[in-house]
């Protein structure tokens, strides 16, 4: 089982967040030492890895670090960590943690999966945000064909809409299994597409 430690993540998600993740208390307020980390370990870190964290990664080869900030964290792989430090690909704050269900779901699944790992690395892919609105696309195609969407799509649909709403896409559709509105779904998807194209054209550095 992978040991889970946290540095200052309380500032990101609050005590309720720790309980949701199955952690009884706010862990470490200081950088742990190698001796304190027995076996494969995952450190939840607020911010970019500093010198102390980088030294920790050098000293302990079965340590992985997830770095979170108020914006997506992009880490340069300088080779020292062998890919063992990973930036959270979405911004995390107390407010977003409370309002964005997909963030809580993903972090919970990631932590549970990591805790069940006997060796690393943790499954970073579980943290991917619901960027691809495939449930919304599926509903749109069903709306065009006059076919009812599946009720099991609702959770995925709402996750995707919530995520893109947080990215300020307009024309936000509501889940409506009875009569999905194709025109609203289309406007939403066009908004997502425009935002993605805009981002692809101007990628910059993320700040923590």
């Amino acid at each position, binding site marked *: 089982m992978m040991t889970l430690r946290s540095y200052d993540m309380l500032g990101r998600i609050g005590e309720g967040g720790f309980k949701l993740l199955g952690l009884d208390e706010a862990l470490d307020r200081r950088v742990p030492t190698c001796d304190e980390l027995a076996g494969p370990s995952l450190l939840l870190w607020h911010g970019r890895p500093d010198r102390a964290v980088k030294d920790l990664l050098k000293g302990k080869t079965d340590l992985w670090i997830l770095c979170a900030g108020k914006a997506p964290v992009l880490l340069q792989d300088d080779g020292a960590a062998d890919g063992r430090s990973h930036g959270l690909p979405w911004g995390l704050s107390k407010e977003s943690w409370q309002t964005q269900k997909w963030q809580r779901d993903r972090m919970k699944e990631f932590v549970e999966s990591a805790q069940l790992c006997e060796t690393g690395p943790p499954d970073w892919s579980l943290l991917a945000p619901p960027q691809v*609105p*495939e449930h919304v*696309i*599926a509903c749109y*195609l069903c709306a065009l*064909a*006059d*076919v*009812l969407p599946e009720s099991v799509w609702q959770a995925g649909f709402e996750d995707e809409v919530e995520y893109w709403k947080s990215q300020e896409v307009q024309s936000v559709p509501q889940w409506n299994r009875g009569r999905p509105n194709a025109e609203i779904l*289309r406007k939403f998807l066009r908004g997502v597409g425009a935002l993605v194209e805009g981002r692809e054209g101007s990628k910059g550095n993320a700040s923590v």
Partner: protein
Amino acid sequence: MLPCDVMIMPTCDVAEDATWCWHDVIKNRIQAFDDTCLALWLQRGAEVETFERRLRGVCEGVSRFSPSKMLESLEPFRTLPAAARHRVAAFLDASFARGFRPDEVASGLRPLVDQLLASLRRCRAAQSSSDRSQLLSECRRAATAVRAELEALPEGYWVPRPGRVNHRDGRA
């Protein structure tokens, strides 16, 4: 305006190939390079061969713009009952057949592609610099014609718009 919608995901491979051909190669190389740079580029066999292969792939694969192809890679559709899935696919195929004619698109594109690729081959084989210069100009003209056709293709899967699904949408 194209009679279709752009879907950001999943990726339509023939749309990707078409965009790469007209943007990365025709626009940024064939049309942008001066004679010296273009002649040097043509000597890079592997890159030109890739361009030829992907360009021919677009000609042969225009039917893959069909939106029913998208259903195969959309995760939620795997939970849709088979009858409903077939109904959506059949509807999309029928709309596609009304609004996009792969045979016509291919028959318009193919001779222009043949002409361009023949020009590229002649350029590579040219011995004298005056022949080469003339052939490079011919190549650029042929590339411009191909680019116009490729730019008119959908940027993703061809998908009908709501409210227009029963109309005969022609290509823009």
